[in-house]
């Protein structure tokens, strides 16, 4: 399974992941820039905000109440369609392969 992180003018980073690994955790483990994940995946800090590329949106699980609340607290503007928390999307559950764009700021 694979996550591709779009890093704007810094290109992209591809990371191979095992089932159960979230977009946030994979970024931390592989030092992908631009994802902070302060709270370690509890939908509490809004610092693992990502924009999911359109072609992957339909397959994603719905946004929970906790995630919804945090998406209103992101530093980079929320995109009503594409914004998600990286900690709430795990390989093998939400996707097998996914492409996300990392926002310009998390804090």
């Amino acid at each position, binding site marked *: 399974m694979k996550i591709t992180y779009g890093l704007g003018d810094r290109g992209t980073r591809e990371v191979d992941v095992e089932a159960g690994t979230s977009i946030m955790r994979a970024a931390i483990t592989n030092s992908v820039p631009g994802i902070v994940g302060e709270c*370690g995946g509890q939908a*509490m800090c809004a610092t693992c905000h990502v924009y999911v590329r359109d072609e992957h949106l339909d397959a994603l699980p719905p946004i929970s109440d*906790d995630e919804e*609340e945090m998406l209103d*607290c992101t530093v980079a503007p929320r995109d009503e369609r594409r914004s998600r928390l990286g900690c709430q999307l795990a390989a093998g559950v939400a996707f097998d392969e996914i492409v996300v764009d990392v926002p310009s700021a998390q*804090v």
Partner: protein
Amino acid sequence: MTAAREAPVSEWVTIPDMYRDPFPIFQRMRAEAAVHWVPSVNRYMVVTYDECHTAEMDGETFSADETGSLMKRSMGHSMLRKDDPEHAPERAAWQPPLRPGAIKTVWREVFEANTERYLDRLADAGDAADLIWDFAAPLAAENLRSILGFVNATQEDLQRWSQTMIDATGNYADDPVVWEKGRRSSEEVDRAIDELLPYYAAHPDASLISGLVNMPGGERLPIEAIRANLKMTIGGGLNEPRDVIGTAAWALLENPDQLGRVLQDPALWPVAFDEAIRWIAPIGMYPRETTRDVELGGVRLPAGSRLGIVVLSANRDERVFEYAERFDIAREKKPHLAFGGGAHYCAGAWVAKSSVAQVALPRLFERFEGLEIDGDRETSAGGWVFRGMLKLPVTWQRERKGAAA
């Protein structure tokens, strides 16, 4: 991987020196090694940003469940000293009233009312006014009392409980008087909780204790977990907002140009708050224990090593923050470690941002025009495990009553 070395033994590091001014000590430690063995503290101290961050994001290797924890002895075994999965259900039970939605709909107006009340007290103190003891401390205690739902206690009770249980948690000298005071507070808290459980079953509201009594599905946490976690919250939810109010006010009063910019543009209050806790993290150090042999920052740590994660030092790591010793609201925004990270990320972070950055600090400077430090009285800061202002005497030129937006 290069060969790991043994941690340098830093006998020159002493507790009284760190209490007075830890920053030059940490600066020298960071230059020498990421991890030191410090005999006076009887543990390894992790002082660099990357290594503190690594430890807090890896709870399997760096366990919060410390052997011989004095916190467990003084408060019981709270979630702060548990690892996942045991930690998770307690954390989940604590979180709902502390989230941004609840703050917006319930707590924000409570913070406003409490702040007005203690600004009045500061005004009444007149020539003897101290920003910490007449404002920051009682306000932080009152806000905590409101959120937790201790309707059968006063803010003064909360301050006494908090300080005596924290003192017991740090009672490495094994002073029997300190243990006794902590034990008495712990029993008072137990009695207050015993009264409140039936009360909130009959009178549910938005408070945290009410939420614990009326959990969805009708299940409750075990009473030992309720008690230990409430004591941890009393210990960990009072001094930190108190100290960031003090530190932020002190930093701004010492840097009038920066204060001027914030007063011009109130959107900068959250920036000033964040820079204040980056500059002087209210919780300076917290413990971890290794579960296996591991290398951290080039230093070999055997399984069972007791560590201190020194975020007070990590937040001044010059490899991450330029001119880290300066308070500078214009610095490049970067994540700091003052709220911790990973599973134990501060549950009260949103409460702090609202109660301090959006209410206490702006209202303080709106109410007192020409607020300044009173140079005729002593100003002092202290601490390294917890650090904050000990005395912050203030004067002002004019009071603007009812100036609050």
